């Protein structure tokens, strides 16, 4: 693999890594009318 391709791969990795780690961890609701 040439250097240019490797650099591009690294760049794509850096750009998408934070978003791929992002996520919803927890959801809490307060509800009314529950029996």
């Amino acid at each position: 693999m040439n250097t240019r391709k490797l650099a591009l791969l690294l760049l794509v990795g850096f750009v998408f890594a934070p978003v791929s780690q992002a996520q919803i961890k927890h959801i809490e609701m307060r509800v009314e009318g529950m029996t």
Partner: protein
Amino acid sequence: MKQHLGRQSGVQSVDVSLIDGKVDVTPKEDGQIDPAQLLKAVYDSGVTVAEMDLTARGKIVKDVSGNLALQVSPNQSFAIAHNDLLKTVEPLADSSAVVTIRGELYRKPAGKKKTAASTPLKLLILEVQKKE
């Protein structure tokens, strides 16, 4: 309601406390869950959601009109409502920094007995837990 919520996509588990009317939803590992869909599912089961809080990890991004949003996946983001805590994350906009935010995503409008959440959900930041 618990079974109804448990059937929604992206839901790992649901804990319901009848005493204080609290419902805890734990998403699956990938975190791909739609809070608006959960709101609708609760509404459809005949219960009113008074408040929905969310803890999410993501990037702060600016949309086309310059408003800030928390992007939790490439195709899911939540517009951030204006409050004092917004200023703490504003400098991180469009950077690679990842933040963990606890915020209020929905609150039942005062005076109305039962409504389905039809307006787009906005995240009101309650706490910035972590900046990475």
